[in-house]
């Protein structure tokens, strides 16, 4: 019998305890993995390759103010800018104001839109149909699935910002690398329905030559309008999205707090089990020593046992988390978490953390065991 198989065998000696411990460690690890995934989606992911090439310009004071439409032409003159498209939030009610019926709606320029959002894919005939119909709309494929919309369906939006109701027809369904849950329609239709929005747009989407030009363009655009009555704030698409995350509150501290509690909880479960196991096996340790195993080996056996249990539990936890995130990320009713998924790096990190939890949890009780006096140990009756 090798040392490894000895460790594995003793780890599963008390099957019920090992199972309970594993669940006790696996469940906190589910949360840890989910939290790390959310963190990555918020702060580390840069989105698709094309999205790193995009910027958003808005009114400096806040999103509730709009910019004159001619800004688009001026922005286009900035070196490095390939295309510019106006986008205006509509914020209409679909069916009623229940949260599950909420989705984003934007007025935009159908001629330019897909030239800026190059990673959104739409069949050419559908794009053509949209460009021809002033009251037409294109919708995200996930959104279409959620509301069971097909080409030609009517979508009525009741305005909340303005006193205007839009009757749109779905002309196209596009797929985006990350689900956007959005509907886009022709801004000419909005201008007709809401005269105050004539030649006004809340935001502009900008496509840059390359990701490296993005910071330069942001500064150049804001400089250009620095002395205008409407100053702008331009930032990368990612930074723009993060502003919304920041609005949720101190998300970083929130996630870190939960992760800390969770790791510590699994540490306690693991340490508890090891303490119980080692206490029960005091006599066994003495026997091992009598047979000639050194203190170091005894220490290694127990620590190894804890690491094996924690790592297996970690793997189960990661599997559960991946399943959970898959379900959450593809559930159209939880729009906020759309497209979130556990990636390999997160899995490896979780597994390492699980192993570390086992290691740290076993250190103290195992050290204690390795120091047991042989005679005392043999006498121990539990």
């Amino acid at each position, binding site marked *: 019998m090798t040392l490894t198989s000895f460790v594995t065998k003793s780890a599963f000696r008390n099957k019920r305890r090992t199972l309970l411990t594993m669940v006790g460690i696996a469940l906190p690890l589910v949360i840890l993995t989910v939290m790390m995934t959310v963190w990555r989606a918020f702060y580390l992911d840069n989105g698709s390759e094309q999205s790193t090439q995009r910027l958003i310009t808005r009114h400096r004071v*806040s999103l509730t103010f709009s910019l004159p439409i001619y800004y688009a032409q001026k922005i286009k003159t900035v070196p490095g800018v390939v295309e510019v498209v106006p986008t205006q939030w509509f914020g209409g009610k679909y069916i009623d104001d229940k949260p599950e019926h909420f989705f984003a709606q934007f007025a935009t320029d159908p001629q330019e839109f897909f030239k800026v959002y190059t990673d959104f894919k739409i069949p050419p005939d559908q794009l053509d149909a949209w460009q021809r119909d002033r009251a037409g709309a294109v919708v995200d494929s996930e959104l279409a699935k959620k509301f069971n919309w097909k080409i030609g369906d009517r979508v009525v939006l*009741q305005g909340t910002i303005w*006193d205007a109701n839009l009757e749109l027809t779905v002309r196209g369904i596009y797929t985006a690398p990350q689900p956007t849950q959005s509907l886009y329609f022709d801004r000419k239709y909005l201008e007709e329905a809401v005269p105050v929005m004539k030649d006004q747009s809340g935001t502009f989407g900008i496509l840059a030559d390359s990701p490296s030009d993005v910071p330069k363009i942001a500064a150049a655009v804001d400089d250009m309008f620095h002395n205008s009555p409407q100053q702008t704030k331009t930032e990368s698409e990612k930074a723009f999205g993060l502003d919304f995350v920041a609005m949720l509150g*101190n998300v970083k501290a929130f996630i870190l*707090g*939960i992760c800390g*509690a969770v790791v510590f909880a699994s540490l306690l479960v693991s340490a508890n089990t090891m303490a119980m196991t080692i206490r029960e096996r005091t006599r066994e340790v003495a026997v091992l020593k009598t047979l000639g195993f050194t203190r170091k080996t005894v220490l290694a056996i127990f620590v190894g046992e804890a690491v094996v249990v924690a790592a297996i539990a970690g793997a189960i936890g990661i599997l559960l988390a991946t399943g959970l995130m898959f379900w959450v990320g593809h559930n159209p009713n939880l729009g906020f978490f759309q497209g979130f998924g556990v990636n390999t790096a997160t899995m490896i990190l979780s597994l390492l953390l699980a192993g570390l939890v086992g290691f740290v949890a076993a250190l103290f009780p195992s050290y204690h065991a390795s120091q047991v006096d042989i005679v005392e140990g043999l006498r121990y009756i539990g």
Partner: protein
Amino acid sequence: MAIPISYNIRNLKLRKGLTIMTALGIALTVTTVVFLMALLAGLRKAFVSSGDPLNVLVLRKGSTAELSGGFDANLFPTLKNLPGIAKDGKGDPMASGEWVVVIVLPRKDGTGEVNVTVRGMMEDGLEMRQLPKDHPKVKLVDGRWFVPGQREVVVSKSIQQRFANCNVGDTIQFGKGSWKVVGIFDAGGSAYESEVWGDVNQMASDFDRQGAFASAYLRATDASAATALKNAVSDDQRLKLDGMLETDYYAKQTSSGGPIKVVGYMVGFIMGIGSIFAAMNTMYAAVAYRSREIATLRVIGFSRPSILTSFVFESLVLSLLGAIVGIVLMLPFNGMTTGTSNSVTFSEVVFALRMTPTVVLYAVIFALVMGFFGGLAPAWHAARQNILTALRG
């Protein structure tokens, strides 16, 4: 006959290390859950305590928030002359036409910029928010109120604490220039706690919104007048406006806590189950150590049900200990203020963590449920074991 409680307590004391670690594990779960519940309680408080049932809020028909919409200022005199409106200090009907805009302010701790609600109001607006006289909704704590016609603002206490340059005497930049902060008000944890107030006319001209109001507030003489007033506004076909009680308006906005709620339930549920298994583990070990002892108890004459009860009880004591530690761990955070975004107005809602008695009660129940389920199976095992084998083992 029941086994004395002191037997369980002594047993918990005997294995101090195990008891402490298990209880601490439960405590951590309880802490996390209490934290999330306190966040939600604070958020609910911010909305529910907001508004006054005697204030009727008027919005354009179809508009769901003060931020969206706007109606012709010419309608305001009509509103003001509706029956059932209380009189202000000058003897006129107490009504205020208002503008709400969202501006960006930098956080004091440098973690970025946040949307903050700026409200432009008339003098009556200030007056009606300081009612009722015995316990006003809003109190001035420093400086003075803004003077109409001046570029002056008053900010809430929590805005002053959380954002840079918001002390009395400072100036903040928004709209077409700078505004002087002349006073700090305390809104007692309501949604006003997240606002900056100034003169409506000054604001409208700064944001190019003259000739219209986003909303109007009417102060009713009593509760029945408020309902009548609300209906009078909504039913008037010429006005095309909607009237609602200010309290109802805010009650609808509690949905802003949605994401916290989702995370809270998920974390609470998963960690709760994890803790049940941890408690089960400890209790199984406790039963295993004491199998001979249990058998002896049986021989003496204690029945199976009393042994079952005894071990479940021990587990409950363990989880209760965890609950107490968990709640104590959370105490320093009670009252800590934080902010989230209002999903209706996109602006910051400042609220405090509130460990209300309900939160504490739920936490204790949650821990006891964990202890109960964690203790049940081991206790069952203890009660069912064979006396002879146990005595021999």
